[in-house]
């Protein structure tokens, strides 16, 4: 059993016991424990069931690479699935449950899959669930969804808060181990502004556990010394619990800070996402030990040798009384020696190498540890817990020579540098045959805009495994980074460290070398996704030769740990199966984030009221208080309609608004319309190029409607242009067009016509704009002004400056409804005041504020087009019969040439018409009109589509506009428009102007 030792635990505060709950059991740990160490101290070796076969699984590692110990953490608003026990700091009151089992961890129905393992090989789902097709949707998928997945999805809203922060440094060092500390010190000494970040709660990384001396001092003392020096440097920032999550172009780096996961009672943000710009990034991210692939390497109690050592030294936890060490390198001997010195039994070191280890052999032997060289583990005995190992010749097929009883197995398949952050932005790797690892190719670092490297790698992450190499490499890396960031490091000798001489690692990817199928099919590569050696071999046989294909076929490395333990072992097996060297197979792509980061951290503060900006007009408050039923228009909220009383139906309200406006007086908040001032001696020339018609001939004081097309000829915006004076125009754009038409104008002025004398300013928000609409519009304004706004003084398509209710205003006599209509612009700060005055002045006419739907219906009744309804980026003005708005006289305008192309000038294009249903019903918006026959794909031919469709309360029937093949030539013809329910509506092609075709109502 695993248990807490009487002594040891350098990270623990044994004076502070903490209570926590696992699967409802109350357990005790200490401050300084991780959840994993605390569980192990309580003999909770088995922590979950595997994903596919539901095999019992235990803790394998002690850090971010842990694949098995994932828990549902917390409850209610703080519930979060898939939390890794090895990186979760214990706190009092922690509550967690294990995942992926039913009904309980100890007894799990899904474990039957383990018995069926033979029938569930790689690609099983792809092969099995293809046929018959309907079974997937109704049988397979619901079943798989029920049984698949790790943690549960949270049900409640996240109770915590999150934030982002932007930070800028010369040098950011990722990893606070001995390498990171040394690199940071060198960069700091050179005067660089440095951030040193460490993902765990402790500085020093593995060094204090693994030991050794630097310049004659024990390494843990050296760590303290460097830390103290760094703390005194004002140019160095030290941050714990901050992980380097991703490296991106131009020195952009994401850091993930777990601010108070370890102290959930604290106030403030739970996680913080650091959005960093660094001139240079040093990845001192260490290395991760690899498992060995032998049968039963997933049985709880089989653990990485380094993890066994970590738990003993850092947390005073013994994984078992009797631990067999299995290895292909010298490093694991440290675990055997460490355990033995703690008074625990190590029945044997099984070293696959014929010659065993170097210096450490003597030390192990002196402690009385039996060493078996050239041997391997044939299989691990046990179910929910290791009970022993069967030993075999590594060179053989796995015939057991001897069984050794034990309750833990410490394995080491060598070390893989953590190259993730190096690789995120394009750093290349090379295969180091001697060390059996991929390590960064320092000549092919990620490069910045200037082509210079912006990432430097340091220490074990660079493949330097012994302390002496680590120290020298990190010292140099710190200097290199400082120099590259523009500082001048003083020449200084690297510290000298002692590390024992080692024998070379043997590249052992399968144990024993000739393992039979029954062994290979129990030798796990990827614990979390349940991928075995036999699966990868099967994938290779079935032709998945690319490592990326084999990965997806087998799901190797696709779990939440992203293959930190399994990738190298898996691709070695694949290489072997393909009979090619490992570098030829290559690695899969390393993508950010390094470990999963919370959704909350990504969202930051963007939730609730600040999820997204909401744009409000100056009259927004009134709308809100008066029953506005909102419609999102970009980031604006515009009233779709106003409900007079809470129960009023939307359709009723819209109809009421239209009727009242047409009969008497309506008010519309039109403030969202774009308002761009264009000024300069060349302004007229500029607008003649932008609009399809001529604007330069417009007289000051007058307005003109214009269309704007893209270079490709397609209609992109429309609106009324007012000429303010000789030099100055005010261009109204659509609400959605305000910003991009402004950008469009600047684009042409800055990039193409840079010598034209034109300035543009976006005044959209300077003005509140209110449309006063209806037969009583003029009378209402006259109630508020002394100025002459008679039909003669202010005719249709003219504007004038007036004073309305004491407020300076500009009145444009323009109409989008077909009624007598004025749009009144005032400074935004007085918008609400004017709105209130208009309501008061219009009271005698039963003034009715109306929303966007009434606006839409009224414009459709008049046959006015709407950008985004009648246009969709493929429509040209000619399609809308708007030749009248296209100047024939002008040499050029944006879109002119495109519109002359054969397919644009083609008479076969669909053109705008009105559609009148024969039964008076409302056509579905976007519906297609069908034609006879089918196309090459066997689809029904179509001859048009509905672009706008409404119920017109004015006419008491459905009205629509649509684009129909040769439409204008087919007036009176009836076409078929099927609905999704299979029925067909018949619609007559008519003029799109349904109401007041002579324009008598606005011309008064």
């Amino acid at each position, binding site marked *: 059993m695993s248990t807490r030792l009487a002594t040891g635990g350098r990270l623990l505060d044994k004076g502070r016991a903490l209570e926590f709950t696992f699967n409802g059991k109350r357990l005790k740990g200490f401050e300084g424990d991780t959840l994993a160490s605390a569980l192990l101290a309580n003999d909770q070796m088995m922590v979950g069931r595997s994903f596919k076969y539901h095999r019992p699984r235990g803790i394998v590692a002690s850090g971010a690479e842990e694949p098995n110990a994932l828990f549902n953490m917390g409850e209610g608003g703080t519930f979060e699935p898939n939390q890794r026990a090895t990186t979760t700091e214990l706190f009092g009151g922690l509550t967690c449950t294990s995942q992926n089992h039913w009904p309980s961890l100890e007894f799990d129905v899904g474990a039957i899959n383990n018995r069926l393992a033979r029938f569930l090989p790689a690609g099983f789902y792809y092969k099995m669930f293809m046929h018959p097709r309907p079974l997937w949707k109704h049988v397979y998928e619901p079943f798989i969804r029920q049984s698949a997945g790790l943690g549960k999805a949270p049900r409640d809203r996240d109770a915590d808060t999150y*934030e982002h*922060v932007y930070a800028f440094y010369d040098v950011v060092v990722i990893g606070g181990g001995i390498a990171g500390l040394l690199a940071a010190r060198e960069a700091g000494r050179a005067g660089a502004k440095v951030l040193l970040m460490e993902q765990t709660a402790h500085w020093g990384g593995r060094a204090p556990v693994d030991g050794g001396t630097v310049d004659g001092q024990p390494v843990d003392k050296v760590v303290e010394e460097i830390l103290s020096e760094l703390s005194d440097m004002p140019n160095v920032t030290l941050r714990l619990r901050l992980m380097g999550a991703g490296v991106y172009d131009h020195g952009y780096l994401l850091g993930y800070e777990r601010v108070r996961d370890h102290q959930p009672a604290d106030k*403030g943000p739970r996680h913080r996402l650091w959005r960093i710009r660094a001139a240079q990034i040093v990845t001192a991210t260490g290395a991760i030990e690899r498992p060995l692939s032998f049968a039963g390497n997933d049985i709880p109690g089989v653990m990485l040798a380094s993890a066994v050592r970590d738990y003993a030294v850092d947390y005073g936890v013994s994984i078992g009384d009797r631990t067999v060490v299995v290895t292909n390198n010298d490093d694991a001997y440290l675990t055997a020696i460490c355990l033995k010195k703690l008074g625990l039994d190590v029945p044997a070191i099984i070293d696959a190498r014929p010659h065993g280890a170097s210096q450490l052999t003597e030390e192990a032997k002196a402690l009385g540890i039996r060493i078996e060289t050239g041997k391997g583990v044939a299989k691990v005995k046990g179910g929910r817990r290791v009970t022993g190992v069967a030993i075999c010749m590594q060179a053989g097929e796995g015939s057991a020579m001897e069984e050794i009883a034990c309750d833990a197995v410490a394995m080491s398949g060598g070390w893989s540098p953590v190259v993730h952050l190096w690789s995120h932005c394009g750093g290349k790797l090379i295969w180091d045959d001697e060390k059996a690892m991929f390590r960064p190719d320092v000549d092919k670092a990620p490069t910045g805009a200037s082509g210079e490297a912006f990432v430097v790698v340091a220490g074990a992450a660079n493949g330097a495994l012994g302390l002496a190499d680590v120290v020298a490499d990190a010292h140099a890396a710190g200097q290199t980074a400082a120099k590259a960031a523009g500082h001048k490091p003083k020449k200084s000798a690297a510290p000298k460290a002692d590390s024992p001489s080692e024998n070379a690692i043997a590249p052992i990817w399968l144990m024993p070398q000739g393992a039979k199928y029954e062994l290979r099919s129990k030798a796990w590569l990827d614990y979390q996704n349940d991928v075995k050696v036999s699966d990868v071999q099967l994938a290779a046989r079935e032709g998945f030769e690319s490592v990326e294909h084999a990965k997806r076929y087998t799901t190797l490395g696709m779990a939440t740990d992203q293959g930190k333990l399994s990738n190298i072992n898996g691709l070695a097996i694949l290489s072997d199966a393909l009979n090619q060297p490992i570098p030829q197979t290559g690695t899969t792509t390393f993508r950010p984030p390094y470990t999963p980061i919370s959704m909350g951290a990504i969202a930051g*503060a963007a939730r609730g*009221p*600040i999820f997204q900006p909401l744009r409000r007009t100056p009259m927004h408050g009134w709308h809100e208080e008066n029953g506005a039923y909102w419609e999102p228009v970009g980031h604006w909220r515009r009233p779709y309609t106003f409900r007079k009383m809470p129960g009023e139906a939307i359709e009723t309200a819209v109809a009421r608004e239209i009727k009242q406006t047409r009969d008497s007086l309506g008010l519309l908040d039109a403030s969202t319309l774009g308002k761009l001032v264009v*000024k300069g001696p060349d302004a007229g020339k500029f607008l003649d190029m932008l609009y399809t018609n001529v604007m330069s001939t417009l007289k000051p004081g007058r307005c003109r409607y214009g269309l704007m097309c893209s270079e490709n000829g397609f209609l992109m915006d429309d609106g009324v242009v007012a000429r303010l004076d000789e030099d100055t125009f005010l261009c109204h754009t659509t609400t959605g067009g305000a910003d991009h038409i402004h950008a469009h104008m600047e684009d042409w002025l800055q990039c193409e016509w840079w010598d034209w004398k034109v300035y543009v*300013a976006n005044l959209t928000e300077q003005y509140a704009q209110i449309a006063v609409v209806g037969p009583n519009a003029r009378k209402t304004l006259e109630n508020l002004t002394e100025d002459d706004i008679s039909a003669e003084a202010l005719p249709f398509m003219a504007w004038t400056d007036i004073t309305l209710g004491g407020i300076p205003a500009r009145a444009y006599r323009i109409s989008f409804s077909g009624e007598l209509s004025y749009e009144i612009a005032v400074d935004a*700060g007085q918008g609400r005041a004017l709105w209130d005055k208009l309501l008061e002045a219009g009271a005698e006419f039963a003034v009715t504020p109306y929303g966007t739907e009434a606006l839409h219906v009224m414009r459709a009744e008049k046959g006015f087009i709407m950008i985004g309804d009648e246009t969709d980026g493929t429509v040209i003005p000619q399609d809308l019969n708007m030749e009248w708005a296209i100047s024939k006289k002008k040499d050029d305008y944006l879109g002119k040439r495109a519109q002359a192309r054969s397919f644009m000038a083609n008479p076969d294009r669909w053109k705008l018409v009105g559609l009148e249903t024969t039964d008076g019903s409302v056509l579905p918006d976007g519906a297609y009109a069908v034609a006879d026959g089918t196309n090459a794909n066997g689809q029904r031919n179509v001859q048009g589509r509905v672009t706008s469709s409404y119920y017109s309360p004015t006419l008491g029937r459905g009205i629509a506009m649509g684009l129909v093949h040769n439409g204008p030539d087919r007036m009176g013809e009836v076409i078929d428009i099927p609905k999704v329910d299979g029925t067909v509506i018949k619609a007559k092609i008519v003029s799109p102007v349904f109401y007041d075709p002579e324009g008598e109502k606005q011309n008064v």
Partner: protein
Amino acid sequence: MSDAISALPGAAFEGAVRVEESGLQGMITLRGDFGTAKLKKAVKDTVGVAIPATREIAQKDGRGAAWMSPDELLLLLPYADVTDALGKIDKALSGTHHLAVNVSDARAMFRLHGATVREVMAKLVPVDMAPGAFAPGQIRRTRMAQIPAAFWMTDEDTVHVVCFRSVAQYAFDLLKDAARSEGRMGLFD
């Protein structure tokens, strides 16, 4: 004129720093050729300062000029003086290609005051807020969370933020959130 109101009159919040809406602020967008003597004089006559250098802001006696782009300035002056000032600018620059418009009502403005304003801003804008990197006299046109914004400091403890009027509530809510006292991280201590 008298009944003009700012975007969020009186809005204020006390947290790690104080956040308050600044009330009505006169602003003129002035575009033209910075190299011409006429423009230089017009700026000086209107707001009492010389044209600021790139990404800088010059202020004096409640007036000022901020660099917005190589051919655009933002002039700051009392709200009530804008109409008059526009008239004078147009007169002074008549015959010179320029554009001067009132944008006072198009904007909302906030004042942040407190010892940790740099840190509060660092949570919202992709700008290096470190004391050596950003100082009073400089201005940044940038992005604040999801909206465009410009800001400058008038002293070590005071930041002024300008954004569009329509997003004033969002900006205020954002600033409040970043100014919560619990989130302190000691970034520039």
